[in-house]
């Protein structure tokens, strides 16, 4: 279990340039494996182009109460990058005029931003159709001031999407830290109590499954069946859908892959599982990711690699949907993570 973020440890991999070098060198440089660009060109899908914007994903800060081993954000209690109220105000201006139907708040633990509730209240007034908060669950139990979050989410009809790597304590705690499983179970019960995740309830509660190691997720539908059965039988917990998400080889997960000597095998597995039909629906084609300091990216992963959008409109303050539509998506070898098997996105599989 990592205690500190890569940034705090001053690890080489805290530098996004170093990560991009690793992803371009070695097996991708010597031709053992094709680059992502060459691979999508085989099926005439290069350059990958953004289509109509549907999802605006805002990362309100990298601070988190957990330090998960696989975290692509390198989030943790020691990260101080937090979106200011001014930047939130700029985001609200965009939310009011955007054609996007989904607003997706993420972090870190988004709830730890001191202006989180104000932002949710203001954004809810903008009347977006699907309003997602990516909650790590344990934050609800972390401190008394967060205990009423389920009621707060309910009041604003927030769609809660929460990470849960397994239905057993051992696998969950190994990835997310000691005690995370028990707190997550309690938080799920709290959410169920106010109506979240219940059959026919309009209060949406979905879970995210990330593999706890150097392997790809299995079939989303059968994993959902297993999760539902186990969580209901063991804890009487209900939820709506499971999103199976592939871990992308960046940040702490890349660090883990290299340290455990799994990097090459993992890249082989991603390339072997490449599915051209997943490319058409990758999330960057309908998503804009906004960082804590207001810059625009094709996805949250590109944000962490500091690959800003290939457009004149690069910041929320000069956001221009017309300029952003049709832009060429910035790619590297990490993109194989979104096109493996049934594909992967923040909303689960895509193919």
């Amino acid at each position: 279990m990592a205690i500190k973020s890569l940034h705090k440890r001053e690890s080489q991999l805290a530098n996004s340039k170093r990560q991009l070098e690793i992803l371009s060198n070695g097996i991708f440089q010597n031709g053992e494996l094709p680059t992502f660009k060459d691979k999508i060109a085989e099926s005439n899908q290069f350059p990958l182009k953004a289509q109509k914007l549907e999802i605006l994903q805002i990362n309100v800060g990298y601070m988190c109460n957990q330090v998960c081993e696989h975290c692509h954000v390198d989030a943790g209690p020691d990260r101080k990058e937090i979106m200011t109220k001014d930047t939130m105000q700029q985001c609200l201006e965009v939310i009011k005029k955007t054609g996007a139907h989904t607003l997706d708040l993420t972090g870190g633990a988004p709830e730890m931003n001191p202006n989180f509730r104000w932002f949710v209240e203001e954004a809810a007034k903008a009347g977006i159709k699907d309003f997602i908060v990516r909650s790590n669950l344990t934050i609800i139990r972390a401190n008394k001031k967060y205990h009423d979050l389920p009621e707060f989410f309910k009041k604003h009809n927030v769609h809660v999407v929460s990470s849960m790597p397994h239905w057993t304590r051992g696998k969950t705690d190994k990835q997310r830290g000691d005690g995370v499983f028990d707190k997550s179970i309690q938080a799920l019960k709290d959410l169920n109590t106010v109506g979240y995740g219940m059959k026919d309830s309009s209060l949406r509660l979905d879970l995210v499954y990330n593999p706890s190691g150097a392997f790809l997720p299995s079939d989303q539908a059968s994993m959902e069946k297993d999760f539902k059965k186990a969580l209901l039988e063991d804890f009487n917990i209900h939820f709506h859908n499971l999103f199976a998400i592939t871990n992308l080889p960046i940040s702490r997960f890349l660090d883990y892959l290299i340290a455990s000597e799994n990097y090459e095998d993992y890249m082989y597995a991603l390339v072997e599982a490449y599915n051209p039909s997943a490319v058409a629906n990758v999330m960057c084609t309908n998503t804009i990711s906004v960082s804590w300091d207001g810059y625009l990216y094709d996805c949250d992963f590109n944000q962490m690699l500091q690959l800003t959008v290939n457009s004149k409109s690069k910041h929320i303050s000069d956001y221009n949907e017309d300029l952003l539509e049709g832009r060429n998506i910035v790619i590297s070898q990490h993109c194989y993570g979104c096109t493996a098997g049934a594909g992967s996105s923040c909303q689960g599989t895509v193919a």
Partner: protein
Amino acid sequence: MQKTYYDPADLRKFGKITEWSEELGNKFFEYYGKVFEEGALSAREKALIALAVSHTEQCPYCIDAYTKDTLQRGITKEEMMEAIHVGAAIKSGATLVHGVQMMNKVNKLEM
């Protein structure tokens, strides 16, 4: 020439066997793929059977492949180890049940 009989990287080359006998290779992989589809047994049950048989066959490639496959399916370590014990029990039972043959022979030969 490699210095060991087994190389983990060879598992990735399994598909290449079709290059020297395309029709038979393709037929094999088609059959193999079909076997592991959901059927009267679930794909999950089949993965556990495959893991157990990988051990009784003592095939390092298969152990590598089906350990990963069962992990991907969310199968727990406890389930994986129990499956291997099933294989081990059959292996040891298969050895021991031949003891009856030995006993029969002894009984026949001894006065």
